[in-house]
C-alpha cells in the first residue's frame, strides 16, 4: 500500500461511517422538524432513531480510530493533522458562541436603549413605546413572559465558576500525571474533573428549575430570557458533551490506553474542556454579573 513509501496514514478501505452519520443527522433533523410542524409522535420517533444512529456512528468511528491509533498507524504528522483540526474546530465553536454574545451586546447596547428613547430612538420611544424605559435586565416594552427576576451572579453561578475553574486545574493535573506516567494520579485527576463537570451540570439544572419555578424567568421572558437561556443552555450542552468525552477518556485511561508521549485524544478533550471553561467566564461576566 501507499504507506510503503510514506508513513502518512491514508485509509484505503471502504468506509461506511460517514454515510451512516449523514443518515443519522438527517433523520435527527427531519424528525425534529416534523415534530415542530405538529407531527409530534412520528417526528419524535424519527428523531430518536436519528440520535441513535448518530451515536452508533460516533462509537464506530471513534472506536476504529482508537484501534488504528493503538496499532501505531498514526505518525507524528497524522497527529499534527488532528491537532490543527481540533484547534480549528474549537475556533468554529467560538464563533458560534460569538453570534449569541453578539445578540446579547446588540440588545443591551443598541436595541433596548433605542426602544427606551436613547440616541436615534427618541421617536421610536415617543410614538411606539411611550411607557417603556430602558433597564437591564428587561423583557422588552411588552414585558413578554411577565414580570421576572434576573438570575443573581453571586449564588450558584459563582459556585459554578469555582467548580469549572477547579476542574480546569484537575484536568491539567491529570495531564501532567499522564506525561509523568503516574497512572493513579491520571485517573484520579480525570475522575475529579468528570465529577466537577457533572456537579456543574447538576447545579445548572437546579438553577433552571429555580428560574422557572421561583423567578418566573423563562426562555420566553423577552430578550433577557432569550439570551440568558440560549447562552447558558448551549454552554450547558457543551459542558455535557465535554463531560461525556471526559468519561470516555477516563474509561480509556482505566483500561490502560495512552502513554506519556502519545495521547492526542486526551489533549483534544482537555482543550475542549478549557474552551467551555473560557466560554463560561464570558457568560459569568456578561450574562450574570454585568
Amino acid at each position, binding site marked *: 500500500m501507499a504507506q510503503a513509501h510514506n508513513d502518512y496514514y491514508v485509509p484505503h478501505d471502504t468506509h461506511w461511517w460517514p454515510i451512516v452519520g449523514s443518515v443519522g443527522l438527517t433523520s435527527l433533523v427531519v424528525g425534529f422538524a416534523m415534530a415542530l410542524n405538529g407531527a409530534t409522535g412520528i417526528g419524535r420517533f424519527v428523531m430518536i432513531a436519528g440520535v441513535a444512529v448518530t451515536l452508533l456512528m460516533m462509537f464506530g468511528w471513534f472506536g476504529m480510530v482508537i484501534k488504528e491509533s493503538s496499532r501505531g498507524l498514526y505518525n507524528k504528522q497524522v497527529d499534527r493533522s488532528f491537532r490543527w483540526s481540533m484547534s480549528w474546530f474549537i475556533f468554529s465553536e467560538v464563533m458560534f458562541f460569538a453570534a449569541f454574545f453578539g445578540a446579547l451586546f446588540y440588545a443591551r447596547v443598541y436595541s433596548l436603549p*433605542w*426602544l427606551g428613547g436613547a440616541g*436615534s*430612538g427618541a*421617536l*421610536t420611544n415617543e*410614538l*411606539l*413605546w411611550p411607557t417603556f424605559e430602558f433597564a437591564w435586565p428587561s423583557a422588552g416594552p411588552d414585558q413578554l413572559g411577565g414580570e421576572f427576576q434576573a438570575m443573581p451572579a453571586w449564588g450558584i453561578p459563582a459556585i459554578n465558576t469555582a467548580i469549572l475553574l477547579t476542574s480546569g486545574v484537575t484536568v491539567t493535573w491529570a495531564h501532567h500525571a499522564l506525561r509523568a506516567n503516574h497512572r493513579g494520579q491520571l485517573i484520579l485527576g480525570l475522575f475529579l474533573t468528570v465529577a466537577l463537570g457533572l456537579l456543574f451540570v447538576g447545579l445548572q439544572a437546579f438553577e433552571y428549575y429555580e428560574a422557572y419555578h421561583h423567578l418566573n424567568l423563562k426562555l420566553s421572558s423577552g430578550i433577557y430570557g432569550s439570551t440568558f437561556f440560549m447562552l447558558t443552555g448551549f454552554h450547558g450542552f457543551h459542558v455535557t458533551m465535554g463531560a461525556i468525552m471526559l468519561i470516555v477518556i477516563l474509561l480509556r485511561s482505566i483500561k490502560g490506553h495512552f502513554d506519556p508521549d502519545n495521547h492526542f485524544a486526551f489533549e483534544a478533550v482537555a482543550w475542549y474542556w478549557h474552551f467551555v471553561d473560557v466560554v463560561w467566564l464570558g457568560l459569568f461576566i456578561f450574562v450574570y454579573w454585568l
Partner: protein
Amino acid sequence: MRHARAGLTVLFSGILLFLATPALAEWAVNMPVGVTPISREVYGLHMLIFWVCVAIGAGVFGVMLWSIFHHRKSRGVKAASFHEHHMVEVIWTVIPFLILVSMAVPAAKTLIRMEDTRDADLTLKVTGYQWMWQYEYLEDGVSFYSKLDSESNKARQLNSGIDPESVPHYLLNVDNPVVLPVNKKIRILTTANDVIHAWWVPALGVKKDAIPGFINEMWTLIEEPGIYRGQCAELCGKDHAFMPIVVKAVTEEEYRQWVAEQTGKSEAETASL
C-alpha cells in the same frame, strides 16, 4: 485576432449603450435626477463615481487589450521574465486609494446632510402593512390608507387576460395618493406593523426601511409640483410587488385646502358614526 476584435466590440458596445443615453429615452437607462436638492446631489455623486469607474476601466482594459493584441505567441513574441516591480506596485496601491478618498469626501458630506432631519416643517408618518401603506400627518391630523388601484389590481392577477400596457401607470398607481406641499422640509417617519417594508420614491431621493417596532427618519424637500411614483423596496411577502407609493406634490395653498377637505371628511365620518 478575430476573437480579440469580437471581444472589443462587445466590451465597447456595452459602454456605448451607456453613452447613448438620450437616444434611448424610451428605454430609461439611468437614475432620475429627481426634484429635491438631495436627489440632485445623489445623482451627481452617482455620475461622478460612474465616470471614475469608466475611466479606470478604460485604462485597465485598454492596457489589457493592447497586451492581448501585441503580446501574443502567434506574433512570434517571446515572453519576458520580469515578475515584480516594487515601485509600480506601490503606485497602483496608492493612486486608487487617493481616488477613493476623493470620492469619499463628497459622499460623506451628502450623507451628513441627508441624515439631518432637524427643523422640519411637516411630519409624515408612514406605516407599512402587508400590503399597503398608512399615512399619518402628525401636525395636521390627517390619516388614511393607500393601496394599489383597482385597475392594476385586476390586471395583475395570474393570467388576467388584461394587457398591462392598457392600464394607466400599471402597478404604479394607488387609490389614495400622499399629498405633500412643495418647498417645505418634510420629515418622513417610517415604521411597519407586520414585516419590514421600505418606503422609496426615486424622484425624491429617499429610501428607508419601515421596521416593525422602530421608527426611522428621513427628510425631503420637493421643489416642483407633480406626481412622483415609487414602490415598496423590501421583500415583504406575496404582494411585495403590489404596494406602490404615489406622492402628489402641490403648492402650499392647495395642500392647506386638501388638509381642510380631509379633516372635514374625517369629521363628517366620525359624526356619521
